[in-house]
């Protein structure tokens, strides 16, 4: 990755970072409360689950696959966690609840991976089915009731702080750093890029597409469980609507951050910038006092972001292929 100004200017990360900086500057100028410590903390807490899961989804996209089951997976895992630990249901201690949630998340991710890589079903279909099925299953196991009585040990993950910083931000930071190192510095990370860059060549180079895909889907399931543990324990109850629309937030963030839906291209840094950009947009909409309509605006803007990002990606690759003399 040759560092030159031209290269830097062409990178999606730079574009998103500039857009991010401009948005913050403008909004902060209009309302200084936007850059207050409390607001920034709230914003980062809101961003944390998407950043954690975004690490997994970046790798999924790098292999050329996609996972849109993330939101329902989070809802289902929250229900599993609640039912296992709530004083009114399983009443298991917090560590057991954590272990069960992480195991369940990994298992669901692995199931996605098996269907995609062994079953050869397109990942958009597998995870669309999973999106619907898990949402239904969540309603079923919760029986239409909210779950309360979450043990304090678990609530601490959502509400506690370490050196004044909420735990969810710590977890997100550690996950992002590890994922970044994994992507850049390890053979396994490099092979994920290679698989998405040219699947046929990957096979000829002795890589196993099946194993790599199983890994990225299982990792994503695991990370959804991590995000569930720190993201859904902020409130004292668990309701069945947790995670609705979450998959759109994560997919949009990753794609806006420069990952190609055709695989081979994308970075953890880009993903993180995408997550923060979307988080800022959400906060700005709240600051604008639009009331009810701010949710609708958020969706409209999210949708526009993903379309623009994919279009830019497409145009860039077309220009590139036009340049290459054949």
């Amino acid at each position, binding site marked *: *990755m*040759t560092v030159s100004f031209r290269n830097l200017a062409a990178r999606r990360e730079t574009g998103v970072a500039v857009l991010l900086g401009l948005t913050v500057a403008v909004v902060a100028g209009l309302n200084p409360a936007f850059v207050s410590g409390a607001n920034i903390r709230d914003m980062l807490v809101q961003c944390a689950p998407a950043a954690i899961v975004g690490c997994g989804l970046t790798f999924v996209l790098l292999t050329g696959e996609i996972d849109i089951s993330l939101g329902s997976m989070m809802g289902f895992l929250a229900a599993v966690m609640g039912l296992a630990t709530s004083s009114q249901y399983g009443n298991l201690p917090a560590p057991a609840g954590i272990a069960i949630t992480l195991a369940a998340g990994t298992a669901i991710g692995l199931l996605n991976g098996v269907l995609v890589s062994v079953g050869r079903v397109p990942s958009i279909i597998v995870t669309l089915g999973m999106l619907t099925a898990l949402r239904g299953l969540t309603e079923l196991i919760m029986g239409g009731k909210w779950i309360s009585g979450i043990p304090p040990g678990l609530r601490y993950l959502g509400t506690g702080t370490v050196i004044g910083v909420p735990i969810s931000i710590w977890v997100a930071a550690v996950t992002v750093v590890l994922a970044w190192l994994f992507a850049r*510095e*390890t*053979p396994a990370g*490099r*092979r994920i*890029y*290679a698989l*998405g*860059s*040219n699947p*046929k*060549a*990957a*096979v*000829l*180079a*002795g*890589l196993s597409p099946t194993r790599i895909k199983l890994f990225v889907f299982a990792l994503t399931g695991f990370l959804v469980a991590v995000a569930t543990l720190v993201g859904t324990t902020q409130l004292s109850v668990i309701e069945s609507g947790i995670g609705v629309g979450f998959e759109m937030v994560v997919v949009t963030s990753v794609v806006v951050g420069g990952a190609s839906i055709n695989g*081979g*291209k994308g970075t953890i840094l880009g993903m993180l910038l995408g997550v923060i950009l979307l988080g800022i947009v959400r906060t700005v909409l709240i600051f604008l006092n639009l009331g009810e309509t701010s949710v609708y605006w958020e969706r409209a803007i999210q949708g526009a972001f993903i379309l623009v990002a994919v279009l830019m990606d497409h145009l860039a690759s077309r220009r*590139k292929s036009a340049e290459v*003399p*054949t």
Partner: protein
Amino acid sequence: MNTPFLDINNISKTFGGVRALTNVSLSIESGEIHGLCGENGAGKSTLIKVLGGSVRPETGSVTINGQPLPLGSVPASEEAGIAIIHQESAAFPHLDTYDNVFVGREIRRFGGVVLDRARMKTETATLLARLEQRFDPRTPVGDLQPAQRQMVAIARALSRNCRLMVMDEPTASLSTRETGVLFRIIRQLKADGVSVIYVSHRLEEVFELADRVTVLRDGRKVDTVPTNAIDRAGLIRLMVGRDVSDARTREPSVRAGVVLDVDGLTRADAFTGISFQVRAGEVVALTGLVGAGRSEVARAIFGVDGRDSGTVTVNGRTLIPADIQAAVQAGIALVPEDRQRSGLAAPMSVKANLSLAVLKSLARVGIISDAKEDALAVSMMNRMAIKAENTEVAAETLSGGNQQKVVLGKWLAASPRVLILDEPTRGIDVGAKAEVYDLIGKLADGGTAILLISSELPEVLRLSDRIIVMRSGRISGELPREEATQERILSLAMPEGAA
């Protein structure tokens, strides 16, 4: 007699009913450069993939230095010291050059957890210097020129200190200078005791480099001969086979009147100055080696791609470039090489496929008449002997040959003025081939001007009234059917120099 370094024994491989290799045996000494020749589809690439482990043969064995090689495993082949430079692009465009060189066998540090980029970069730089390349090892391969990419593939193979290097058309994208560098490297490898299997259509290169040459034809080994005991013509004769019976069953049906007139068609980097005419009822073959630009010409005529200069005229009407609809309206139809992907509506019924090109004539006030469609489908099925349970089964459930008959039947029903057939019998069995040939004959008898693109010389000789041979994007010769032989076609198709 000591045992040879590499011993390939009775390898057979079938792809979906088509035999790619039949009982191929071959042995190579250490430090030998061994040429591998054959026409397109003779089985060279499959044999290479068997050695590389990406294709597992049904029968046969391979031993290296007397050790049996586990077949069908890329890591096992690499472990045994086999490095392959594949013809198809095996590069990862998004990755940097040094990653491309080392992916799958990364240099690691800290107990194997972390990539040692510094070492991978310096080693890549050394390899590139050896290949006389001057670009930065950090350049993403997607930004490199084709020749540079080829050099990266060669660097990748060199990086593993292999004992057997297999090169599939390594000079296809190289200049003369780069080819010279490559030849020096190959001779150096030979001096170091490395064996090289060298596959090339450029026979001069084979004669220049190889100690012995093996010829494959139709998936079988024809012979292995020392290169100093054979000449170019002899080698071509081996590739073609002496016993080809040119069963010319088709009576010429050429009529007056040029239907398709291609004049000075040029597309930069693909083909230059292509001019020819096809008359009503005439079958003109456009042949040449893979990569000579045949399909590209077809695509430009049909308007899939644009053109830089030249004209395409159908029945006196000049076509707008890069406009498929204009080509279709003028009466051109194209049966693409890749029938599964672009010639057949695979999940739709045989009936729906057969009627697709003539739906308008089957419709009344915009509604398709079931009775007419059924009648058409049944008559086509019988006329073309399509083997299917009934007209309602999905086209994809048919065998390859029958699928191709459905595609041709679609056009037979529409009777286009010009029909372009790109490799119409690729991957279908001998019996179905004969029936497809009959169909092509019928279309010509009906007055359709046919442009046949085919690598299979017996097919070209059997069907065509005239044969146009392409070489590196240009027409290198034209032969009337009376004068055409496989040898003459091949010598027009083969590149003359090394570059």
